[in-house]
């Protein structure tokens, strides 16, 4: 039910385009860019020195999945006796959040964190010298 590129439109296979995203020197950790390649709308994140690129169409209702808040995963820690220690922000897992309804995605995999069978389309990111490209 998410929007995505128009259905039924013929895709030309094997003609992947490289789209310039930004100068690497201009993207710091936590930055993001939205780039458009034909019908593709792609969010490119820089997180802990690496780049991650995903479809900008949320799998819930088609919102701009990559344009919202980035925020660490919330964890509930249990003691050995199974009592709750409370809520904490993860030290290792970062999420990005669709601003329409708050659907959360794993920064490193694009998986929807409330149902990991659902996954945003992932795009390859290339670094050429000081330039960052996404392949679509």
């Amino acid at each position, binding site marked *: *039910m998410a*929007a995505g590129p*128009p*259905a039924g439109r013929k895709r030309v296979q094997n003609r992947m385009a490289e789209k310039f995203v930004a100068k690497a020197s201009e993207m710091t950790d*936590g930055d993001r860019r939205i780039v458009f390649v034909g019908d593709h709308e792609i969010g490119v994140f820089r997180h802990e020195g690496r780049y991650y690129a995903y479809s900008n*169409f949320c799998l819930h*209702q*088609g*919102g*701009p999945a990559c*344009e*919202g*808040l*980035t*925020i*660490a995963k919330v964890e509930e820690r249990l003691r050995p006796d199974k009592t709750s220690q409370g809520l904490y*922000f993860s030290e290792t897992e970062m999420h990005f*959040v669709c*601003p*329409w*309804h*708050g659907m*959360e995605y794993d920064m490193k995999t694009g998986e929807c964190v409330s149902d990991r069978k659902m996954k945003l389309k992932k795009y390859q990111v290339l670094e050429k010298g000081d330039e960052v490209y996404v392949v679509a």
Partner: protein
Amino acid sequence: MDLIADRGRRVTVEELNTSRLLAHARKQAVQRKLDDMLIVDVDAHHYENENFKEFIPYMENDVLKQLTMQSIAKSRGGIMPQNVGYQDMGGRVTRYPMRGSEKTDEKGHLRDVQLGHRWMDAMSVDYSCLFPTGMLNIGMHPQKEMEVELCWAYNRWLTEEVMPNAENRFFSMLCLPFNDADEALRQVETFGGRKHVGGFMVTTVRNTGVQENQYMKVYRAIEERGLVLSFHSGPNWAEPIFKTCNRFLSVHALGFSWYNILHCTNWVINGMGERFPKLPVVWIESGLAWVPFLMQKLDHEYMLRPSEAPLLKKKPSEYMRDMYYSTQPMEIQDMQALECTFRMINAETQLMYSSDYPHWDFDLPSTISDLPFLTEKAKHNILGGTAARLFKLPPRNEKQKANLQKFGNLTAAA
């Protein structure tokens, strides 16, 4: 604009522009040709608290007005019952914290109207039934007379200043001061004939029984005028039973269903469907999954205890099928369950699309238009045809007119 994320980390997000935020909604509307279909949103909201200074002067009692004016001038006093809640999910739903950053034309329509038109245009919504936000808690106001005054002021402002200056795209079911039946009746008599008034709304977060004798004159007055009565639900963490919940998710999921389950039960079991057979009743913002549950539960009890519901001439579920329901927040997790729900509700004639925008769990029209089990007629009816008949709303273009005609929804709407 920066938002605060984990551990105080600042995340820069573009300033809010509703049209841009909803660009994908517009894309969906174009792909699905939704502009050709009359779409009516029977439950949308604005933030009336941002307009207190505009409508509080309409309060009638000088003393209560002075008390309220002074309170809002200082920006410290609370004039509405407040609820603990985290609708913005810690800023994850960015339109909440960024709302103030959106620019509107100071010389144009009222800001709420401009913002409303932006999201309506993005989603291809032609008409919206405008409801308040904070005032959904008005039923819990400790002062009956203040509930009356605030509803009166809001209803005057809405019908005299807001809806007449909104290109006829908003209508409302006006908020009733339900804790005072005499005053509720006066407001029906005063506002019931005004343009853009499709009916009256009772907020269901309250502790009064809808079957109490004092309300019969109110229902009769609404029915006589050919208007609609709706019940709008909400969450309430202060409700004793919900104090056991430690997460807003739980309170929100249960509360919105619970209050309508409660009042719908009293409505049906006390034979309101027999007493007011021509009064259209709409149950708003509880989603749909509760309806099959309640139909089965009440039928089961009624089969064994008809002596406690002597006014009924048919099963409770049949009365429930005579009433209307708004779609949002539609539980769309299990398609077979949803299809069963639609069948039990008689969705083709009894279900009406609602977005609940701008609230956090809004639904787009595509939640209906993309359902694989619906006929074209059902889609047209749910998205707007049924509401067009109920609220007598005309088409906004020739293709909408043709579609309304095709599915039998034009006669009363034109």
